[in-house]
């Protein structure tokens, strides 16, 4: 059945997006966003900066999940597991073994790659609904393991993860971490764009659109899907590494199913496969509940209703990809 994923090409919102099409306007928009990011700390309170840091972390995570869900079309409901792998790798290595923070990043990447292969290898041949439930089960297994193992600090988690230092300068405080995450988010964006336009990126889109045709053209779909899975895992893991040093302590509730759902919401709400859309989605899922803080305990309810309305009025997300 042919499904029109572009809601209505002539709608006002879509015309607004189309306004950004000429390269001059696009680069101006990039420059403005970058300028806003750089000058942010000048006019933001500490509280606002902590929230912004969190939103930027979600940009990284959502872009990573977007590689899996948006590019390759694989539904992953346990993405927080990779986030946990990165966070715990750094936590354990810095705390138990006294490894320098920057040296833990390669370890986290390797750990995420292994986790991606372990879970992706046997399951990527399954149909997509089953893949969803397997990833969900995997996510729960990782969280429960973190809750019950000695080395991960059981339910109370790990605390006292030292601040990293760079060229003798210690990274601490909201402003420094804000910039760390801003740089991380920019790197994630650029690498995500480059991946999409690479040979692998085109293979992902091809597999998502028509697996059989892709295979007939000589694309090994299992290998390509596994590559998407591992790429997503690495993004999530690096997000986790910096999450761990930013907070200084990590515990299992940060890696629950709700966390996976929140990241997935950012991707689909914003518009799968569309980088600006995913970024908007990440900001909505973090800033939305914050802006609604005044109404107290009802804020998540109101947020859920708003989410429902957005999905009903823009089924393909706020800023969908025009390609399909």
């Amino acid at each position: 059945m042919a499904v029109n994923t572009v809601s209505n090409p002539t709608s006002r919102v879509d015309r607004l997006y189309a306004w950004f099409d000429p390269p001059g306007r696009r680069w101006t928009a990039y420059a403005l966003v970058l300028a806003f990011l750089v000058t942010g700390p000048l006019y933001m309170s500490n509280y606002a900066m902590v929230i912004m840091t969190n939103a930027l972390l979600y940009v990284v995570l959502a872009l990573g999940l977007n590689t899996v869900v948006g590019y390759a079309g694989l539904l992953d409901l346990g993405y927080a597991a990779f986030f946990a792998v990165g966070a715990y790798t750094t936590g354990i290595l810095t705390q138990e073994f006294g490894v320098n923070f920057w040296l833990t990043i390669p370890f986290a990447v390797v750990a995420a790659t292994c986790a991606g292969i372990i879970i992706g290898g046997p399951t990527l041949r399954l149909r997509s609904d089953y893949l969803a439930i397997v990833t969900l089960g995997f996510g729960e297994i990782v969280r429960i393991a973190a809750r019950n193992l000695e080395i991960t600090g059981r339910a109370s988690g790990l605390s006292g993860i030292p601040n990293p230092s760079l060229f003798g300068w210690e990274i601490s405080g909201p402003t420094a971490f804000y910039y760390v995450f801003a740089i991380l988010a920019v790197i994630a964006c650029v690498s995500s764009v480059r991946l999409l336009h690479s040979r692998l990126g085109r293979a992902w889109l091809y597999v998502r659109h028509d697996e059989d045709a892709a295979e007939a053209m000589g694309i090994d779909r299992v290998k390509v899907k596994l590559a998407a899975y591992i790429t997503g895992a690495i993004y999530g893991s690096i997000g986790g590494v910096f999450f761990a040093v930013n907070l200084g302590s990590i515990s299992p509730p940060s890696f629950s199913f709700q966390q996976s759902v929140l990241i997935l919401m950012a991707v689909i709400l914003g518009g799968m496969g569309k980088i600006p859309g995913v970024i908007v989605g990440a900001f909505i899922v973090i800033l939305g509940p914050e802006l609604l803080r005044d109404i107290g305990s009802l804020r998540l309810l109101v947020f859920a209703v708003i989410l429902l309305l957005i999905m009903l009025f823009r089924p393909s997300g706020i800023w969908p990809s025009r390609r399909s």
Partner: protein
Amino acid sequence: MRTPEERTTTMSFTDIFLQQLINGLVLGSFYALVALGYTMIFGVIKLLNFAHGDVYMVGAFVGFGALSLVAGTFGAGWAGIFVAMVISMIVVGFLGVIIEQAAYRPMLNAPRLSILITALAVSLVLENSALALTDGQITAFNTDLGFNGIELGNLYVSYTQVVLVVASFILMIALELFVSRTMYGKAMRAISIDKDMCRLMGINVQRVIAVTFFVGSALAAAAGTMAGVQYGRIWYFMGFLIGLKAFTAAVIGGIGSITGAMLGGLILGLLESFATQIPGIGGEWKDVFTFGVLILVLVLKPTGLLGKSEVERM
């Protein structure tokens, strides 16, 4: 009467086996009832209804509310519980229809992942509504049933357990008859094969989908009320884990297959009960065990135990 602890210490291997068999049957019939809703809804609209666990939770609360209302007339014994369960099934059945009409129907032609997010949003709405209404407190589900039961040697079976298992089986048989013998059941099976063709054949597809949601939600409500009676406490988050487990059960049985859902539910319930007896798998590790079994089943037999293999076209 001896306390459960005393009983456990003097139990032989056979006793433990039988005791866990009974516990597993109770747990498994709850899983099966919830899994049926998952599988039916997946059959007709190919949606993994993530809100289903929360529908079960709402069923428990409506059942609790109904029991407090009818306790004056029917008492809080079996008669009252039965009336409360029927009320809960009807109310929650209509809630299911409302959810389908408001949230899922407009999304049926949208990309598949979008409707999934809608289901997650519905789940959040239900959960947070319950949270706001109960302040996040655990509500005690009090009945007049007491703890009477049959003591067979070292074995102990409460009447509540027996009645709940029997009631679950009656509901499952009723559902099986509904699906295999009635016009709506036939339409449901036809829609799960080819929705567009059914529409061309003059079947009112929308109405059949609505009926499916009614039946699926009513079964979840029945399970919710019974779980309240059995475990004595209900809270806003109780649907989450059982939603996952029932989903697992549906997949183990082969999603889309009614008999598979029942079988999957019972197997999962029994596996979990027996797993608690294996050293090292107590407490939270039992969930790891459950999901491990799920992954194993899917890797070895991806269509589930009774599922039909089909070529997927997204």
